[in-house]
């Protein structure tokens, strides 16, 4: 058994009104990948931030290589050999890759205030070699994909000679191939004796990469298991503290044949190429594909958020002119963005204000005043109907958890009462319990006769929820599958079908 690198004992952390960590403990050994799982708000990130010197603990002990330490700043953590890669990557997009890696400790020339860019680049190249990474140190970070940016963060951590590397949801925004590349690098680091803490919501990947799994709930450490003994159901039951059947089979009922939305030959440069499909009444139409396949682009074009060069959109058989999101709403289309915080909600405003945002005209009295009473009633109805966990409808959105924020967005579109709803990654960053509730909601909506387009990067979600699935790759639709012919393998093949090879298409379909 390898030596213990970090040991956390009896850690307590209070925030105003919340006990974020309650006597939690954790142990990381050198040369292991230790997965940390738990629902949102379980205290994973808080515990990691204490290890990384971003927060200070209120009680408890932290031992690093057997000695008790007080980590007071991120700098001090780095000096010890602890690096954190945050979920929201912490890079300077305007600076080059090399400049980012060495920020704060730039190699200098003989004149100590002059930065030695050549040396900076050389050092960066050396690190990339260690990671077998093909990257030009002069590239601006803003020009890189998220996956590459993550590699830059890893290179940065390595440059500190990190002994412990904490990765907060590193795979959340990556495609499957990119995840495989990331895991290759992680395995390499593990072999070199680095201890890695891997926080993830994707329980499927734990078996692939983790040696041990620690489950947290409500600020407490529940259990630590060997990854090989930890079945997904077991982890989930530890996470939520009750047994739920996540993979409950949903047998999609055949929706009606009435077509509510038809898109014909939507085109915009390379982003959208001859996109045509139909959405039927009461149907959940899944949109699968890798990151950058053009799914969100389709949604935004239909919703009038982005323009398109050619193509027609028909709503219930009639051609619709959708140039702005306002047009889309009048055509009864609602869009729930993948980025709730940026596009879906006004974080600084409260629930009742957000809920009526897309249907203000229904909440204005004859004199032009906002009808606060009516909007409050509506907001309270939504809070009750969707089971939004909040003290009051006056709660600011930013203080809600991810799952509850998503419910507010749903409430907003239910208030607007649109017949067609486009959900873009409806469960991203949402914990398992809240996920099931969102799924139930989607099913309720289609039962009421609403039609749903659901864009999702999680295949199990697509398989579980969709009546049919449209698969995209590089701006084209490469396949459409009915529920009875769907499988992860088929979808992945379509999703990676880069040129429109008809024979290959037929081969997959059969």
């Amino acid at each position, binding site marked *: 058994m390898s030596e213990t690198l970090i040991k956390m004992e009896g850690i307590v952390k209070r925030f105003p009104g919340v006990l974020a960590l309650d006597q939690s403990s954790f142990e990381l050994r050198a040369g292991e990948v230790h997965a940390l799982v738990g629902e949102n708000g379980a205290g994973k990130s808080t515990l990691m931030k204490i290890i990384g010197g971003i927060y200070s603990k209120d009680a408890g002990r932290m031992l690093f290589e057997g000695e008790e330490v007080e980590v007071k700043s991120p700098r001090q953590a780095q000096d010890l050999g602890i690096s954190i890669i945050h979920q929201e990557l*912490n890079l*300077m*997009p305007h600076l080059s890759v090399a400049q980012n890696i060495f*920020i704060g400790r730039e190699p200098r020339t003989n004149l100590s205030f*002059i930065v030695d860019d050549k040396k900076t680049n050389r050092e960066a190249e050396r690190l990339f070699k260690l990671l077998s990474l093909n990257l030009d140190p002069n590239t601006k970070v803003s020009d890189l994909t998220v996956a590459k940016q993550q590699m830059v963060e890893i290179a940065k951590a390595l440059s500190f000679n990190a002994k412990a590397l904490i990765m907060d949801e590193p795979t959340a925004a990556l495609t499957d*191939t*990119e995840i495989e590349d990331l895991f290759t690098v992680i395995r390499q680091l593990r072999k070199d004796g680095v201890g890695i803490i891997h926080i993830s919501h994707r329980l499927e990947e734990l078996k692939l990469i983790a040696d041990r799994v620690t489950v947290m709930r409500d600020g407490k450490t529940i259990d630590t298991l060997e990854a090989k003994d930890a079945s997904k159901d077991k982890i989930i039951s530890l996470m939520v503290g009750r047994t739920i059947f996540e993979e409950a089979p949903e047998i999609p009922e055949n929706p009606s044949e009435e077509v509510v939305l038809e898109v014909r030959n939507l085109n915009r440069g390379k982003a959208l190429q001859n996109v045509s499909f139909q959405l039927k009444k009461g149907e959940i139409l899944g949109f699968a594909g890798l990151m950058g396949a053009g799914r969100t682009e389709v949604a935004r074009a239909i919703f009038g958020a982005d323009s398109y060069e050619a193509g027609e959109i028909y709503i219930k058989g009639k051609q619709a002119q959708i140039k702005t999101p306002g047009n889309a709403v009048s055509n009864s289309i609602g869009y729930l963005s993948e980025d709730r915080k940026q596009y879906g909600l006004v974080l600084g405003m409260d629930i009742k204000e957000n809920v009526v945002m897309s249907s203000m005209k229904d909440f204005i009295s004859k004199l032009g005043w906002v009808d606060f009473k009516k909007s409050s009633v509506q907001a309270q109805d939504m809070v009750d109907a969707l089971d939004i966990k909040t003290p009051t409808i006056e709660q600011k959105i930013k203080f809600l958890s991810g799952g509850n924020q998503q419910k507010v967005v749903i409430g907003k579109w239910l208030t607007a009462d649109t017949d067609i709803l486009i959900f873009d990654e409806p469960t991203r960053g949402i914990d398992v319990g809240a996920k099931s509730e969102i799924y139930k909601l989607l099913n309720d909506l289609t039962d009421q006769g609403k039609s749903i387009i659901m864009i999702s990067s999680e295949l199990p979600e697509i398989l579980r929820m969709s009546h049919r699935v449209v698969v995209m790759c590089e701006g084209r639709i490469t396949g459409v599958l009915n529920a009875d012919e769907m499988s992860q393998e088929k979808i992945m093949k379509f999703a990676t079908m*880069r040129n429109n090879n008809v024979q290959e298409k037929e081969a997959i379909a059969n």
Partner: protein
Amino acid sequence: MTIETKITKSFFRSDAMQQIMAFGALIVLFIGFSVASPYFRTFDNFVGILLATAVNGVLALGATFVIITAGIDLSVGTLMTFSAVLTGVFITKWGLPIPVGIVGGISAGAFIGFVNGSLVSRLKIPPFITTLGMLYITKGLSLVISELKPIYFNDTPAFREMAMGSVLDKIIPGFEIPNAVLILFGAAFLAHIILSRTILGRYTFALGSNEEATRLSGVNVNVWKTAVYALAGMFSGIGGVLIASRLNSAQPALGAGYELDAIAAVVIGGTSLSGGEGSILGTIIGAFIISTLTNGLRIMSVPQEWQIVVTGGIVILAVFLDIVRRRK
């Protein structure tokens, strides 16, 4: 199979393009006015343009740093006056040697900049508010210290020589370019080196690009942000000494409005108000575009009030073109 989302940046989108566009605009202005008026294309008039750029150019250098950090400095104009007045007090009232007076004036500018930076970084007062307050404070202090009267440097003719004399004329007779222009280019060179080669320059970009990431990288962001504002204050100090020397007096009522010219030059030069990008070369070109335009329009007998209107239009046009460039 990896799907590489390759971002092929067209040349039109590149950062160099902004500067080339700005430089091209400057050339077009020069050619246009030269064709339109024989008075424009005289050596004396070119010298006039250079001289007219000197003070605004130096102020804009400091503003460039602040704006790259995603901040703003509204106090550069009145701080210039404050430094000019103090230089006047040091040299004429206290009788200090000219170099000491100059260093004193510039240091005063840097000190006020340091105060700006401390308020912004440590007390977290937004830059707009901090420097708006400092605009009034320095304006008021200039009037208090000068007792509302201009301070003349009549007893120290060497002080006026500093900006208005011409070292170049002594080396190449007839090539009479005032020292103020050399000071502008010297200061610009210094600013360029600081921005592109030093740690301070690197952190200036880093702060504007992602301050939180910079902090989490272990950089003491408060110290460096304070340094950026102090540097801007220093350039205001240089501007103050320059304008005092040029006018042979410290005019306490002057200064308000200069900060807007400086910000306009920075923006025309392609520095983003949202931070993270910008260049000294761009700022200098921006400053020249403003003074060339003013000069040319004046020669074409366009009334001064209309010159101001045109400058405003140019600022909006420059930013619009930059947005179009990025969108492509």
